[in-house]
């Protein structure tokens, strides 16, 4: 399998866990995986990306622009910010809830994510997820990253099966939160075809 997957969001949204689950699912099934994360100063309230590269013929730790098969975005503007990485014919899975930057409170530009979603829909195949709504029955929006991962797996385009991912959630997520994460994941999967 050769696949490039970019996971992006804002610091604190759980991109690192999501990318670890994808990477380890692929690895447990014998794939060669490389990944790279933005960490350090950029992490504090800033844009966060994780590049996952599956396959043998990989050299650059970052996905070359125009090569990503899929972008999983936890925030609309972050999806657009990273859209140059998506290949023609690639797919974006994006959460519709915006995260306003601090600068937005100081100087209101009215950013609400709507324009971003419209732009994405115009430019590529795009699954817009209302992660808040999916997570509402769970009583916490904390697990929305795994719900979106569920949507990505359910789309059939991630190249990772439900069974592989379930195994990772069971073994890699903090035991206290496995049950909630599984529910969020199942809720994401259940959206299959319902976009």
């Amino acid at each position, binding site marked *: 399998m050769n696949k490039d997957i970019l996971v992006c969001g804002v610091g604190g949204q759980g991109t690192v866990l999501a990318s670890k689950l994808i990477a380890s699912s692929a690895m447990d099934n014998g794939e060669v995986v490389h990944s790279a994360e933005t960490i350090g100063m950029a992490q504090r309230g800033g844009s966060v990306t994780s590049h996952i590269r599956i396959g043998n013929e990989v050299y650059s730790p970052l996905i070359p*622009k125009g090569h990503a098969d899929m972008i999983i975005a936890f925030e609309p503007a972050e999806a*657009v910010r990273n859209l140059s990485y998506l290949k023609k014919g690639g797919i974006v899975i994006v959460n519709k809830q915006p995260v306003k*930057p601090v600068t937005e409170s100081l100087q209101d530009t009215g950013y609400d994510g709507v324009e971003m979603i419209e732009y994405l829909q115009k430019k590529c195949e795009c699954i817009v997820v209302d992660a808040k709504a999916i997570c509402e029955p769970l009583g916490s929006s904390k697990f929305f990253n795994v719900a979106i991962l569920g949507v990505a797996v359910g789309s059939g385009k991630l190249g990772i099966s439900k069974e592989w991912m379930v195994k990772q959630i069971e073994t890699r997520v903090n035991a206290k939160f496995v049950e909630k994460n599984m529910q969020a994941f199942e809720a994401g999967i259940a959206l299959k075809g319902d976009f």
Partner: protein
Amino acid sequence: MKKEYVMGNGAIALGAMVAGVSVVAGYPGTPSSEIIETIAKYNNGDIHLEWSINEKAAMEVAATAAYTGARTMVTMKQVGLNVASDPLMSLAYVGVKGGMVVVSADDPGPISSQTEQDTRLFGSFCKIPVFDPSTPEEAFQMIQDAFDYSEKYKTPVLFRPTTRVCHGYASIEVADSFETKKHDDFEKDSSKWVIFPRLSFANHAMIEKRNPQIGADFSNYKYNSVRGNGKKAVFAGGISYAYAMEYLKDKDDVKVCKIGTPFPFPEDFALKALEGVEEVLCFEELHPFIEEELLKLAGKHHLNIKIRGKHTGDVALSGENSSESAREVIGSFLGLPDSCEQIDLSDLPKLPVRPPVLCAGCPHRASFYAVKEAMKGKKAIFCGDIGCYTLGNAMPLDMVDTCLCMGAGITMAQGFNWTHDDCTSFAFVGDSTFFASGMTGVANALYNEADMILCVLDNSTTAMTGHQPHPGTGRNMMGDVVDKISIQSVLEGMGVKKIETVDPLEFEKAVSVVKECAEMKGVKVIIFKSPCIAIVKSDKKMTISDKCINCKKCIREIGCPALITVDGQVTIDSSLCTGCGLCSHICPVNAIGGECNE
């Protein structure tokens, strides 16, 4: 054996452990910090592991341990090598017995550093070998070789990964246990270990004779390699080789030469690789190091080869390389059409900017705001330093007027003191930076009779680089609980007469302490003590009552990420608020309340 999916820094750590390293010292700095943290995770106690107080201390600890024949490693970021350069320059002359690897991580971009300096140049400056890995997997193997070469030539060696290698993840086969290499007792021999001009002269001559031999040795080293054929060649090193290969993986009609050991340059290898080549492109980050080595080689051997790179304007002189710049630069060198199809993004909407900010509830915000409030309407200059609190420069706080390097704020505040009679000089320093290089600055201020206020922002950790312990925390990297060094006692011992400790979240008190100090002459220190909010998780929240007149003063004054507007109305984002209560002191109508930490 087991497979571990680790960060490049983890691969470096595990490689050093396979090589039998027994003493490891360093100072935190992005992108190098996880090397020592990985060793801590796997250490069974056989390896002496420490966060030293700074890079110079780390270098010296590791040096004498290597004098005994032990294998030692020092880790730091590139600017840390400046701090450690004094011992390293001399150590290069004295040499070592056991393998000693100095890991200095470069940060092209720069992504989280003050400079875009190139550790390879430090290698040629100190005249010691440099290893330059291009992937995490290679770093794992290469650091083991680095220990062997260090021991073979009895010299410390530099190992310089860059951010993208340090922070890239890959799978490494790791042994289930590690053994440290045995070493002897230190053999006293002052003609060998005591640096005097006579020794330096003799060893300088030895080093100049030795380095070409190392260069020849490196010519047969596996990580100096050639693939492909043709009249054109691309020379690359480190991560730039990975970018070049990403573009050239399917092309055999161009030579791709990897330089894994840029110094001493493997001349024989390069000469052989250049046979039949008419034109070369050097693709590297930071200094045109390989390019200049090839220019020297071409001059020395009268080679009729055109050498292109940074000096010819083909490759950018600053910033990072990438797969995209490789495609562009190498594509144009080979005369190939740009083949990459991309989605047309020429009409990209304006994206919200997300500059890094102090966390919601960060006590530094309260400290800065207390000083700002106390000095309102008065002339003051604020010298910042290196750490999370450099972010105090951001609007609306705007409380960092200068920032240069570790510990500099304290001495820089003194410089303004001698040029401004009518102005209060402030320095802000974190607790870890205070121990790293702040104490000498305080001694300088006392001795030279400066008037200044030092604000120690003591959050009991090294926050910016990922919460490493330091001498003030009472924990070390061997897992031991040790006596905390009290910053207050250090200052008292030096003779600071006015020292106040205050919790910045007790806002009114903090402001009055600053006002009181500003009225006094001499060196005054305020220790703002409150733990890092990323460590002490708080469940407390502030709330806004219907008394709020929506004046937005809270947002305008402190810029806390938890203070947002929803449909034009000031709101507290309860997912971010930690209940620090700073905003409640700002509200003109007392509309903000709730369970605060006070």
